[in-house]
């Protein structure tokens, strides 16, 4: 018998006998012979746990783990308190299904309710769902929430993450949404273009803060323009930055989305991450995905339950706004454990450390001739030119265990997008500067 299967050979025989079958093959009688697989799968036979573990460990060992990471661009290395991982690895959470049975799932339901609350507090929104797949799909779902028969144009900032653009384009094509990009000017969106092109057919204005280049958009002004034609205003934000920067609520956003990975999730080669999605009260019934609500049980005890399910695929089938069912529940739990471990003071300190360190490093780079093409303010990412061959600079850093910034392409070819978080020390930044100087010499 294979691993994890408890049956002994005798038991298999007994069970078959008890239900009137002579052998296992008879159970598969309904499968037409002509399509049956007549050979063994070309997958090697099972390994012992020790051998299998070694095989996978060898693969892990072929990856380079950089002790110092100066690259962000949608995935950020942050300090994760040990307690967060321990909470998220509890088997009761890890091995549960979606909490369909509230009586035995109060723990999970309550944790989602707490998550929803924390996301609302961060973003200044009224309601959050239980999570979607990632920041890019959260953006796409938010865009879909805004479209109706009269409004089918989504005005999207050219300055958002390029991968998010690609995902938005895929979703838009399916839903017959027309995307109109708001061009970039000086590292942020061109407000004049937005103002002169927004119409009564504009469903939403979508902006990322800080944007892909790390620059801060004039989110308050954009909100005013969006609302001048009653278009919805969607803000995609970095959740850690929200301890320092205006909340989406403060600048008039109708929907706040973002990539929740910075909230306690390791880099993990891109996933699993966390898409958060929160909105103003008026849009709640258009929100996709699971939502947990507070209610009472038969004895009047406070209880939690999946609610507003009339929006969802298992009830509405083809009329549902989205087909999402499994989401990123354990990542949402991780995020709320992280936010609770940080608290307002810890999260603010983290944001400040990111901000200050990034500004220190930017200043040091400027001193050696790496100039920013943009003049606006930034949070923890910024673009610089590279006076020397950027490939050589990044290679030299790599050899010292430093993952340098992301080399950019197209109009910004030869430029580098840097990111500094709280886990990079001044000493490490100074070392990076010395290495770069060495390349330039």
């Amino acid at each position, binding site marked *: 018998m294979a691993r994890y299967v408890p049956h002994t050979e005798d038991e298999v025989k007994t069970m078959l006998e008890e239900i009137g079958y002579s052998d296992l093959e008879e159970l598969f009688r309904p499968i037409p012979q002509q399509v049956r697989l007549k050979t063994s799968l070309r997958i090697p036979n099972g390994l012992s746990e020790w051998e299998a573990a070694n095989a996978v460990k060898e693969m892990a060992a072929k990856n380079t783990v950089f002790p110092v990471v100066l690259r962000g661009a949608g995935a950020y290395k942050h300090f994760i308190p040990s307690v967060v991982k321990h909470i998220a690895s509890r088997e009761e959470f890890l091995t549960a299904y979606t909490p369909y049975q509230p009586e035995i799932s109060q723990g999970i339901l309550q944790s989602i309710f707490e998550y929803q609350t924390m996301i609302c507090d961060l973003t200044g929104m009224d309601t959050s769902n239980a999570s979607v797949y990632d920041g890019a799909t959260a953006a796409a779902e938010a865009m879909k929430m805004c479209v109706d028969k009269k409004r089918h144009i989504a005005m999207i900032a050219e300055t958002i993450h390029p991968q998010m653009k690609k995902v938005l384009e895929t979703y838009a094509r399916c839903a017959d949404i027309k995307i109109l990009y708001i061009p970039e000017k000086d590292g942020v969106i061109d407000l004049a273009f937005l103002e002169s092109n927004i119409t009564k057919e504009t469903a939403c204005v979508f902006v990322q803060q800080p944007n892909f280049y790390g620059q801060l958009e004039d989110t308050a002004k954009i909100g005013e323009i969006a609302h001048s034609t009653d278009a919805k205003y969607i803000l995609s934000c970095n959740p850690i930055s929200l301890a320092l920067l205006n909340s989406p609520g403060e600048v008039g956003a109708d929907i706040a989305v973002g990539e929740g990975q910075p909230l306690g999730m390791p880099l993990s080669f891109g996933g699993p991450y966390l898409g958060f999605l929160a909105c103003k009260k008026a849009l709640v019934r258009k929100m996709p995905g699971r939502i947990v609500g507070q209610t009472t049980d038969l004895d009047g005890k406070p209880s939690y339950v999946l609610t507003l399910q009339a929006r969802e695929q*298992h009830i509405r089938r083809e009329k549902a706004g989205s087909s999402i069912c499994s989401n990123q529940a354990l990542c949402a739990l991780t995020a709320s454990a992280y936010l609770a471990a940080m608290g307002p003071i810890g999260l603010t300190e983290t944001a400040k450390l990111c901000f200050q360190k990034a500004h220190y490093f930017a200043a040091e780079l400027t001193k050696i001739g790496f100039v920013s093409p943009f003049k606006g303010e930034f949070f923890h990412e910024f673009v610089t030119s590279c006076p020397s061959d950027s490939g050589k600079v990044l290679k030299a850093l790599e050899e010292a265990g430093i993952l340098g910034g992301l080399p950019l392409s197209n109009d910004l070819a030869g430029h580098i997008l840097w990111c500094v978080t709280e886990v990079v020390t001044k000493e490490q930044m100074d070392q990076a500067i010395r290495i770069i100087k060495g390349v330039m010499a």
Partner: protein
Amino acid sequence: MRRNADLIFTMSKPGRRCADLPPMDVPETTLSDRFQRKEALPLPEIAEVDLLRHYMELSRRANGVDNLFYPLGSCTMKYNPRINEDLAALPGFTDIHPLQPEHTVKGALEVLHLLETYLCEVTGMDKITLQPAAGAHGEWTGLNLIKAYHAHNQDFARTKILVPDSAHGTNPASAAMAGFDIVSVPSNPDGSVDTNALRELADEQTAGLMLTNPNTLGLFEKNIVELAEIVHEAGGLLYYDGANFNAIMGLVRPGDMGFDIIHLNLHKTFSTPHGGGGPGSGPVGCKEFLAAFLPAPVVTEKDGDIVFDDDRPESIGKVKAFYGNFLVCVKALSYILNLGGDGLKNASEMAVLNANYMMEKLKSMYTLPYAGPCMHEFVLSAEQLKKETTVSALDVAKGLLDYGIHPPTIYFPLIVHEALMIEPTETESKETLDEAIAALSEIYQTAKENPAFLHEAPISTVIRRVDEVGAARNPVLKYDHR
């Protein structure tokens, strides 16, 4: 001391700390006032020990496969091997950036490539993407392939997706999300797709048929070859919903049954844990003639190296940032290496044996609307029981909670009234199945003797039945800090 599960916000005290941070070691500068947050940030302020105790209490109020038998139909709640968790937690996987230079992530590319290879083999497909994050996401991705294929052929009349009336709700929802109109295909009295009806419905407007096989009744579609022919002859494509793939590994392959596209749920068939509702992973496979349309990038071999290929002009685009839920893929690969081809087949055989064993033992009490043998799951009906005793499928489900057993999926598929959909999976022992059979027998007896008791069930859980109507009517969706 009485354990309580107060909301974490009520435990907060201003100034209390858990995590601490590295010191500020650089000179400081200021952010313009107009960008600064003015709103308060009422996150909990709590000590580490109390944070842990809070979540320990929540975990005591949660239940996974590690706590109890979980025969939740269509969800494949099999045991999640711990070795998979250990391997996915290796720093060589958790601490790599998705935009690192390719030569520094060769091991990660090897994981993706090897997993794809094995998944192609077990499904009979030619190419797989691991980008979709969950089953429904995979469905939608697969439907986009269908759309791209017909568009490529300039065949814009194909706007309809056929979906059997027994299908999962995600099927029509995903198809609508991909921009298709939905046409429902009726079932035969034996629960299979009505081939005659299908023949009439399949036409020049048919983009494809979505099918899960075994179907949601747990029955293998005996006429699969004919169904495939009908759809293909009409010019449509065949989509395989992998929710029920645990029944057929190493026994029959969707690719050999005529399917052109599939999705799998790694969090079902390939034992990665559900996490209370994700993260999952919904790989999509297809035949060679559709491979050009897969989301970019794809993992491919080039000059002996495994690399990302982002130059895919015919691709449907991206469906998610980066490459999918990578760590989930690591767990699935570990599972396949541990089981091997032989073990996968054995897993399916034992899953089917367990389901048939339970079905045979229960069918004298609860009605079996469609005769077996079933595959990995089966559907019973409590309709008769309800007529006789007033005890509904919901009451039976709630009654099971008092036995420490997770209830089956209820009221699905929609074509069975008072449905109880039971999927034991292969990792459950005969003793566990016997206990569950005994519990369902006792519940059946109780229904006859004391139905009121079951209307009140459960009685042993931390809360009793909840007011769902009230929750939806007056939604309270977050804590009010005031």
